[in-house]
C-alpha cells in the first residue's frame, strides 16, 4: 500500500504536480527529521539537512529507480547529507561532567526527559554507523530485514552490528550513571 501510494505520488511529481511532492514531504519529513536529529543531536542541523534532502529529492526525482522503495532512496540521500554535515563539524569538547545536573528530578516525567537527554548524549559517543543502527531499530522500530534492505547488507550482519552497538551504548550509559528503570 505504501509502495503504491509513493509510486503514484512520484509519477504525479514527474508529471509536474508540485502538490504531490508536498504529500511526499508530509509523509516523510517527520521520520527524516528525526533520523537527522538523532544523528546530529542538533535541531537546526536536522532542519537544514531535512530541507536539503527534499530539495535534492525534487531535483533528482527523475533518476529514482521505481523498482526500489521511495523511502530507501530518500533515506540514502539523508544519510549522505547527514554524514557530510557530521564531517564538516568541528570536533566538540566533551561536556564537563561536573556541569551535568546531579540534583534529583522532581517527578517521573522530568526523570523520563532526563533519561532521554542522557540517551541522546550517549548516542553521540557512538560512531555514526552504530548510531544509525540504533536509531533505525529503536527509534523508527524497523525490523532487521527492513534495516538490511536500507543498508544493503544481510540481516544477520545488521543483527551482529546491533549487538555491538548496544554493548557500546550500554557502557556509555553506565559511564553516565543512567538508570532508566
Amino acid at each position, binding site marked *: 500500500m505504501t509502495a503504491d501510494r509513493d509510486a503514484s505520488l512520484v509519477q504525479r511529481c514527474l508529471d509536474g504536480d*508540485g502538490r504531490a511532492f508536498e504529500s511526499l514531504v508530509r509523509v516523510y519529513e517527520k521520520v527524516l527529521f528525526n533520523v537527522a536529529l538523532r544523528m546530529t543531536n542538533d535541531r537546526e542541523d536536522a532542519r537544514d539537512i531535512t530541507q536539503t534532502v527534499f530539495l535534492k529529492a525534487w531535483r533528482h526525482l527523475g*533518476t529514482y529507480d521505481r523498482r526500489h522503495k521511495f523511502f530507501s532512496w530518500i533515506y540514502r540521500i539523508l544519510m549522505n547529507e547527514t554524514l557530510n554535515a557530521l564531517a564538516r563539524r568541528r570536533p566538540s569538547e566533551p561536556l564537563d561532567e561536573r556541569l551535568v545536573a546531579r540534583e534529583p528530578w522532581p517527578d517521573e516525567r522530568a526523570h523520563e526527559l532526563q533519561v532521554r537527554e542522557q540517551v541522546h548524549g550517549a548516542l553521540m559517543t557512538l560512531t555514526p554507523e552504530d548510531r544509525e543502527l540504533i536509531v533505525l531499530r529503536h527509534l523508527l522500530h524497523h525490523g532487521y530485514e527492513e534495516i538490511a534492505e536500507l543498508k544493503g547488507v544481510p540481516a544477520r550482519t545488521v543483527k551482529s552490528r546491533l549487538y555491538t552497538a548496544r554493548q557500546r551504548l550500554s557502557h556509555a550509559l553506565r559511564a553516565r550513571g543512567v538508570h532508566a*528503570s
Partner: protein
Amino acid sequence: MSLRDEQERRIQDMLEGTASPGEAAETRAWLAASAEGRAREQDLRETFAALGALALEEPPAGLTASIMAQVAAEPRRVREPWWAAVSRSFARRPAWGLGYAFAAGVAVGALALGLATGALSPARHADLPVTATLAPPGAAAPGATAALAAGASEVAAALWIHEDLARLRVEGAGREPGTLEIAWDEAACGVLALHWSGAGGRRVESEPGRLSLALGPGARCAIDFEIREATQVAFGVTLRSPSGEIHRELRAGAGGRRR
C-alpha cells in the same frame, strides 16, 4: 564484563524479544546460575529501558512550507530522464525496441554521411552561463543592500521581500574570513531555512532573533525568514574581523501582511 559474545547475544535476544521460547528458557536457566550474567543482564535491561525512552519529536513548525518554498523557487521542473521513459516503453512493448533500433541505425548512418561529405561540421557550444543557486524566489530587485568592510573582511548583503517571505543573502569577500552577526525582531519574523553555497561558510551559533555566521571569501548564505507581524522588517548585520567591526541595518517594507 567478561561475558562471551554468545552469552551477551543471548541476553540481548531475550530482552529484545527475538529469542525463541526455548532459547529464552535456556538463557534464564543460565542466568540463574551466573551472578556475572545477572549483573550484565541488569545493565542491558537498563539500556533497553533507556532506548525505550527514545521518541519521535515534532519537526519545527513551518518546515513543510519552507521546503515547498525552496522547491517552488527551483528554476526547472523535475523531469524523468529520457532513457527511463524509453526503457519503460520497451518493457511494455518489446517490439518497439526493434523499431527504435532501426530508426537509430538510420540516424547514425545519415550523421556519418553528413560528416563525411562536409555537409555537417561539429559545432562548438558556447559555455553556458552559470546561474546563482541562491536567487531569491519572486522578487527581482533587492529591497535593501549593504556592503560591509572590517579590516580585510568584506561582506555584501541584500534583502528581498516576497509576499510573506524575506530572504537575506550575505556573501563573503575580501581577503580574510569574518564573523557576521545578524539580529532581528523575532516577533516580526522567524528563520525558515539557511541555504549555503560556495566554501568557507558555516553557522557558528543561533538563537531566536540572532544568528552568527562565519563567512570566508566566496561563501554565500541565503537565510529565509517567515514574516509574522510586520509592515517593515529590519535586520542588523555586524561584521567582525580580527582588525575591526562594522554595523549596518537593512530595512524593507513587508506590506503589513498578517498571518
